[in-house]
């Protein structure tokens, strides 16, 4: 089963991907696998354990399945302040 998702890229992820978002179909079983697939595609240096993941503007779990129509953000280590 596949889901159509929009992924947002911030900070170094955006610089590496060279886009700030993209929409595509994914059959990844969970958000962890989705990130690993994107990491393989773009060569993101950050490993999963350095990131958090958010779905539709709220923090989510790596074990969550991608929901059809959702907006997914991978959150690199923050550096506000």
């Amino acid at each position, binding site marked *: 089963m596949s889901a159509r998702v929009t992924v*947002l890229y*911030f*900070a*170094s992820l955006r*610089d590496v991907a060279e886009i700030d978002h993209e929409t595509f179909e994914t059959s990844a079983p969970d958000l962890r696998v989705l990130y690993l697939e994107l990491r393989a595609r773009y060569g993101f240096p*950050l490993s999963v354990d*350095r990131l958090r993941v*958010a779905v539709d*503007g*709220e*923090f989510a779990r790596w074990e969550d399945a991608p929901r059809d129509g959702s907006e997914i*953000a991978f*959150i*690199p*280590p*923050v*550096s*506000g*302040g």
Partner: protein
Amino acid sequence: MNRFALSETPFDVAALRAQLLDARVGGYASFEGWVRDHNAGREVTGLRYEAYVTLAEVEGERVLAEACERFAILDARCVHRTGDLAIGELAVWVGVAAAHRDAAFAACRWIIDEVKQRVPIWKHERYAQGDADWLHPAPKGDDPAD
């Protein structure tokens, strides 16, 4: 009520401070982060803050609501800049009003620490040598800068 805000433009600390004035307040503690001309041994010429706005606003509000629960304070506010900032510009402001100074100081410190650790805002530093970089600090305690 919004206690946390992002601001794309310079903002006025005096007006924010005035919102916390109250006859019950005995102690007011505030913290401001300003853009330094150096970081981790490198000369910095300016920086840019980027936020995941939707989540940053939600998480920022959560930090301030938690501070009001954890500490004996009357109210607290935080504003964080986004966009391009020059050396000496105000990057973040935290203000806390309490009856007593113990709680005001403790909550102010806690808020800035939590904001820096939890709110999705990223700093992009430009260096005197011409290069630039995103700061993605290692987990808490491993960061040599603040």
